[in-house]
């Protein structure tokens, strides 16, 4: 019941984005991919979410051949950097989306969906904002709606792409603790992409430091910090 990424590679037209990335993480881990822009961390996340196809390599997750599953069957809750909320839907409709689009046989009833949305709104502390539109919310509120929407599908895996990238420092710090709390409650495996090493080391159980499409070092934050294996890692940590 764990996540095994085995030599995943991806080339874009002009440059290699991932050069054989491998790592293993236990079920329920909070894993951070950290590195400068262009290091391939977002590409790896998008491959796990099914939004990008790997050229080669394998991923096994909870004993499923993960990469051979279509994106919409993976139940990978994806939180986008710019939130990607549906502008024309209310907050409640945004959160309900993943349940509404299920095939009739597995779709919860109207009242079940309503209860679930209310529950999630409470979880992300937006109880009274269900009827608002995304354009009427602050950045931090939008971020929380995006997370609630991803959690609504009861994801097997939570994928977060620079989720706090567009927020100011104070809100970031608050959301960090809160996100970690939500992760622990939901019991999912979470993978978190950030270029901010302080954020990564403060939140994650495991950190993968990436550079130029490769993992430079992978391990528990304390171990990586104590014993940087390459010059890049020690430079990156002291930056």
């Amino acid at each position: 019941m764990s996540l095994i990424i085995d030599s995943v590679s991806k080339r874009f037209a002009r440059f290699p984005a991932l050069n054989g990335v491998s790592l293993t993480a236990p079920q329920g881990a909070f894993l951070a991919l950290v590195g400068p822009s262009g290091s391939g961390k977002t590409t790896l996340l998008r491959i796990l979410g099914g939004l990008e196809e790997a050229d080669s390599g394998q991923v096994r997750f909870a004993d499923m051949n993960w990469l051979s599953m279509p994106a919409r069957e993976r139940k990978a809750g994806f939180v986008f950097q710019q939130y990607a909320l549906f502008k024309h839907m209310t907050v409640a409709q945004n959160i309900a989306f993943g349940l509404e689009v299920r095939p009739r046989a597995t779709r919860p009833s109207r009242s079940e969906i309503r209860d679930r949305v209310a529950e999630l709104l409470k979880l992300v502390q937006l109880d009274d904002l269900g009827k608002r539109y995304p354009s009427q919310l602050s950045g931090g509120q939008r971020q929380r709606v995006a997370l609630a929407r991803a959690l609504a599908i009861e994801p097997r895996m939570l994928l977060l792409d620079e989720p706090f990238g567009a927020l100011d420092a104070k809100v970031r710090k608050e959301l960090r603790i809160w996100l970690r709390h939500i992760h622990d409650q939901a019991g999912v495996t979470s993978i978190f992409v950030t270029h901010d090493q302080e954020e990564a080391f403060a939140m994650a159980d495991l950190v993968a430091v990436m550079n130029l499409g490769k993992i430079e070092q992978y391990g528990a934050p304390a171990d990586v910090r104590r014993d940087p294996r390459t010059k890049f890692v020690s430079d990156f940590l002291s930056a």
Partner: protein
Amino acid sequence: MSGFKNPTRDPLALRVALTLLAVGFVGLLLVLPLVIVFKEAFADGVGKAWEAIIEPDSLSAVKVSLLAAAIAVPLNTLFGISAAWAVAKHDFRGKTFLVTLIDLPFSVSPVVSGLVYVLIFGMQGWFGPTLADHDIHVLFALPGIVLATMFVTFPFVARELIPLMVDQGRDEEEAATSLGASGFSTFWRVTLPNIKWGLLYAVLLCNARALGEFGAVSVVSGHIRGQTNTMPLHVELLYNNYDYVGAFAVAALLALLALLTLIFKTILEWRYADELAAMLRR
């Protein structure tokens, strides 16, 4: 009015001159012709204009025009949406070529495109004899008029939607997919609602142009009075026969149809002002 107090304000004389120039242009090029059309139509009174319109040949022209638009516009809407969706939301070989191809009707003279259909479907053309053997009439009949109208109005929907959809990016579609939505569900629930205002505008423009198309239709229609004449062709025919009241009455009706679509659009914009504002804000 001194430049010190209002650094972003131009001198009075310049402002007046520019305003007059703009108003003058609009008046001369847009308003005046419209006024003259209605004035000429009612030159011999409203009764005469009405008679010219309910005359059977005129009514037939109205019918042919509306029918051609009723077929061409929905089909072009369908093609336009699929083309824009393919171009804006997907990557594939030959994308630039497709975009150029969509623009083709804008760059080719309508008369030339009409002639192309004559070459293809005419008695001396590729398929003409075969079609004639099976008693299928394309040229000098409604199918030819519809084809010519479709060709000329083909770019309107796609051209309006492509920049809009490119600008909106793929984020929301990707979010929908990751939440488990199928391709169709994503299109229906996410893509379409996001483009509906642009789409409405494109369809209205496409419709206006379809009703007004002259050149291409003129080549393929055969100008058979009471059968294959469209409204613009009928206007020309009446005008050439010195029936000025008739010509301007039908022209006024054509202009009225265009004005109606504009009024319809304005009402919708007014009715959904809040929603529009919410969509425009990010």
